[in-house]
């Protein structure tokens, strides 16, 4: 067995892990290790060859690999160890020991702080329970993306895409550019799941039809997909009988959502949020297990990598401080609850003791709304109050709450912080 000892260990070298490792090292953590299961750093960015990354963080329009490279270059100049081709299997949350496996065999890594940055996995056909036969030719959009952009395999020629998530729309364009025919993008909701920019530049540009309030109710084909049956749905998302029509195709791509990948988090005793499916975190991105932090898509699904980097730097700095203080910390936490028209808020807790920095709260609304007022309150104290013209479940919202105002709150008066969105 190979034993290692570190101040900070980061699991997953995608955008979250890269930013967290760099920030931890910059904050002064002496020994930092970055553990990655793939053969190179960068995570999902490596297969996202389209541009649109970095507009907020770098003020430039970068491709995924270019965005990752900005962090990889910084990381190379720092005292950060990298373990590639290494799969983390479990974490002992009490002893802070990460158990992993790679070519050298079993690996045990003891760290004062651990950062979870494993990202997401795509929902599959099984998660949706689509009826029909089980032929070849059904892929998640991200799998098709990796096969195309990294391994040079085009998964089909005649495509239907279920779900209007960003990866699905981006793959519609990618497959079209590579000579495939994309027949339709089918979305069960009455609105787009991804960004409008992607609808315009990936679907409209190539004349690919988008069917809102429709879903796939049957898949046909023996060895390979032959056709799918599409039905309109009612406002409860139930298929309307009599509206069915068939689309012939050899491939079905699914872009129907992401699930934070938290199997390893669970082994450490990390508590998960029912809505986000990610760890419950405080404003330092620390989970309920002392010294275990989480950041990026493993916490909640983001739409912009720029936000992931910013949030992960917060986690990296806090993890470094925790490691340097040898885990000594007292706590005075206030819960943050989603109020009306808000699905979830991250962080779920605010550590008010010693708080000086402002706290960014990320949330998603439940429905598309116009001319709204966004409010954060705690008891009678108003922490945030502003108007906004548009909110949309597909686009994450964030508000900044003043650190001094949060610090002045009494953690013991039984009041939680609530974020609400209401029509004016």
């Amino acid at each position, binding site marked *: 067995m190979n034993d290692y000892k570190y101040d900070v260990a980061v699991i997953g070298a995608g955008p979250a892990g890269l930013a967290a490792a760099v920030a931890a090292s910059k904050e002064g953590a002496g020994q930092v290790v970055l553990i990655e299961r793939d053969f190179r750093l960068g995570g999902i960015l490596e297969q996202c*060859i389209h541009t649109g990354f970095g507009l907020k963080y770098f003020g430039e329009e970068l491709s995924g690999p270019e965005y990752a*490279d900005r962090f990889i270059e910084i990381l190379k100049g720092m005292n950060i160890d990298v373990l590639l081709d290494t799969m983390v299997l479990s974490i002992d949350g009490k002893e802070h020991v990460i158990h992993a496996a790679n070519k050298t065999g079993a690996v045990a890594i003891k760290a004062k702080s651990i950062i979870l940055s494993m990202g997401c996995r795509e929902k599959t056909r099984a998660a949706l329970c689509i009826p029909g036969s089980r032929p070849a030719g059904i892929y998640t959009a991200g799998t098709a993306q990796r096969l195309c952009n990294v391994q040079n395999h085009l998964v089909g020629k005649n495509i239907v895409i279920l779900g209007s998530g960003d990866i699905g729309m981006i793959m519609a364009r990618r497959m079209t550019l590579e000579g495939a025919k994309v027949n339709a993008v089918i979305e069960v909701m009455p609105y787009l799941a991804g960004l409008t920019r992607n609808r315009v530049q990936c679907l409209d540009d190539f004349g690919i039809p988008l069917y809102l309030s429709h879903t796939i109710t049957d898949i046909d084909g023996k060895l390979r997909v032959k056709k799918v049956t599409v039905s309109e749905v009612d406002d409860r998302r139930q298929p309307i009988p009599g509206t069915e029509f068939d689309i012939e195709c050899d491939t079905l791509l699914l872009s129907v959502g992401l699930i934070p990948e938290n199997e390893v988090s669970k082994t450490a005793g990390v508590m998960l949020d029912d809505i986000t499916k990610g760890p419950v975190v405080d404003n330092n991105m620390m989970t309920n297990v002392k010294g275990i932090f989480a950041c990026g898509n493993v916490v909640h699904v983001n739409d912009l990598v720029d936000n992931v980097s910013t949030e992960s730097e917060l986690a990296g700095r806090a993890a470094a401080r925790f490691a340097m203080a040898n885990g000594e910390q007292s706590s005075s936490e206030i819960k943050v609850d989603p109020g009306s028209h808000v699905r979830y808020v991250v962080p779920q807790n605010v550590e008010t003791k010693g708080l000086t920095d402002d706290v960014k709260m990320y949330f998603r609304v439940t429905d598309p709304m116009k001319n709204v007022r966004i409010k954060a309150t705690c008891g009678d104290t108003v922490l945030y109050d502003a108007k906004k013209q548009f909110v949309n479940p597909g686009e994450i919202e964030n508000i900044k709450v003043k650190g001094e105002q949060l610090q002045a709150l009494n953690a013991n008066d039984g009041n939680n912080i609530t974020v609400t969105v209401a029509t004016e």
Partner: protein
Amino acid sequence: MEEREIICVICPSSCHVKVKGEKGKIESIEGYTCKRGKEYAEEEFIAPKRILTSTVKAVGYTCPVIAVRSEKPIPKELLLPAMDEIRKVEAKPPFVIGKPVIENILGTGVNIVLSNC
């Protein structure tokens, strides 16, 4: 006279802007709610441009293909013709971000460059 509806992508409002005109000349434009939106819709009507991203074969690289992009946006109607050019080339070491694999693609003045290393 051509008439087109352009969905603005500048902000999440997604205004539907109606533009009328012909051959690069705009006769009327309505439905925009800000200056940036008007400018976006005008450019989209007269000369829409896009950044093109793809992959090319890469000899001696860690994967069979490597990511490439157009350094700047190119005219939208040249996206598919540009793909035909991109299919013909192979990238060779050293693999450095920003290294041109096709210079001045289709006379646009824009290079196709490596976007990974």
